[in-house]
């Protein structure tokens, strides 16, 4: 691992004032992510994992601690972070290509219009949507829309990709398809990824390290698991690996332990 992390979270905490006194959502989150690493943040819904991610996105301000990306403290949203939201969030009045171009225009204003268009087309081709460039999001399936969402983030050529449960709204088949696709794309670039998920198998398939969050309120990092599987990974091969089930059991045991300890859910806005 590089001595200098690309993303470093230091004593990160978020507290909201409420009439009943301050509500601590997350506290004392310390995490270092190296360049090229794929990290999954896993935990029960409402445990504050999305809060941590939204702070890294710059959409939310930490009450304590700080997040440092590269050499700079994060103090707002920026184009050095490519974001994929839970819902694809494409603009329905633009074609798929125009959606991507909106991002490219913003990130690479110095390129010529032709170069920017090429950039958008390349990103679409990467996610297998080259043929759908001129269609509107409403004409696409949910899976294709989320592919376009990923293409938009890729087209920005960011330092880090931030994925907020990007596949949780898809049906099981499409979800597996997109996980494999993301794995394939990631193997090509090895771009740093921080991804929030509550899907244990997804985390094991994709991540180098899995960060387990304790339950809220006042959630924090419980354990960190280094995923032992060699890359490139193939879903079918993982299923044959006895190590896979050990890791899976350990993750589930942690999450279930959390569930029994504190059966409260939806403590904070996800």
């Amino acid at each position, binding site marked *: 691992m590089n001595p200098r992390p690309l993303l470093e979270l230091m004593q990160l905490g978020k507290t909201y004032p409420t009439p009943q006194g301050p509500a601590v959502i997350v506290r004392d989150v310390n995490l270092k992510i190296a360049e090229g690493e794929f990290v999954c943040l896993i935990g029960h819904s409402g445990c504050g994992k999305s809060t941590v991610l939204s702070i890294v996105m710059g959409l939310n301000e930490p009450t304590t601690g700080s997040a440092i990306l590269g050499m700079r403290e994060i103090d707002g949203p920026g184009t050095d972070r490519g974001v994929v939201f839970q819902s694809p969030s494409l*603009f329905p009045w633009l074609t798929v290509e125009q959606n991507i171009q909106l991002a490219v225009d913003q990130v690479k204003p110095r390129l010529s219009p032709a170069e920017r268009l090429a950039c958008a087309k390349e990103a679409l081709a990467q996610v297998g949507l080259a043929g759908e460039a001129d269609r509107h999001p409403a004409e696409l*399936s*949910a*899976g294709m829309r989320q592919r376009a969402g990923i293409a938009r983030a890729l087209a920005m050529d960011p330092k880090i990709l931030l994925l907020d449960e990007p596949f949780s709204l898809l*049906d099981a088949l499409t979800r597996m398809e997109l996980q494999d696709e993301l794995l394939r794309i990631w193997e090509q670039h090895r771009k740093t990824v921080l991804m929030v998920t509550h899907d244990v198998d997804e985390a094991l398939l994709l991540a180098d390290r899995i960060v387990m969050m304790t339950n809220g309120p006042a959630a924090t990092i419980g354990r960190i698991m280094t995923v032992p599987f060699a890359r490139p990974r193939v879903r079918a091969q993982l299923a044959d690996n006895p190590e896979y089930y050990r890791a899976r059991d350990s993750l589930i045991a942690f999450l279930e332990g959390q569930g029994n300890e504190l059966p409260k859910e939806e403590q904070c806005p996800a």
Partner: protein
Amino acid sequence: MKVPALPSTLSANPSTAGNAAPAKRSLPRVEPASIILPLLAGAGVLLIWTALSQTVSPDLPSPLRTWQESKRYVLDPFFKDGEMSQGIGRLAFYSLMRVIKGYALALLFGTPLGFLIGLSKFASRALDPLIQVLRPISPLAWLPLGLVIFQRSEPAALFTIALCAMWPTVLNTAVGVRSISTDYLNVGRVLNLPRRKMFFSIILPATLPYVFTGYRLSLGIAWLVIVASEMLTGAPGVGGFLWQEYNSLVYSHIILSILTIGFIGFLLDRLMGAVEARFKTT
């Protein structure tokens, strides 16, 4: 997209698995009932109308008499014998011109006002109570004030139309801005869009469907107001004609005017409905 064959234990949602077929626009099929039923209802109204004119209200012209006395106005809609006697098409044209001017004013002031109220909490808190008070005021109440301010009937009529018709545009636009999905705004924020681009690339197109709903409702009100304002000012137009014929005791022309107003209002609504549908995004 290829979907690999997988064990049937996995649930595959057919609507998301393949390409969603683009919605095909076909002509609406006309059912016989949708023609026959309104005709029957119309016949019923004619019957009641005839019965009323024969019994309780001898001054009310019967449908037949109404037609006979209005024939020329309808069959030769653009004749002009003088200021007092013109075809109904010509009169409707005067009214429409007036409505378009007043309506344009309403949109010109209403749209930015709606965006302002939708975007700024400050403006919304300042102006919302005021709008709630101004909104229910009848055109009959605004018109005299317009006459006092402008001294002439034409600008007073436009003033009245604009003031009465702008509220649906203002309110719908404001609601549209407030109901923009936070996802859209978050995308704009993570892309670091400058304020101007945020407005023109995201807020404006996301609000357009609401804006056009407002425009349609505003046009309906503008058309309602025109009649009242013409009746009070005696301006040439369908409303003015209606009042003039009432004073001249030609009651059949009142009915002619009423029907004309209804038909044009219906057509305007359909027209705006079609425009509105074009901006509907899912």
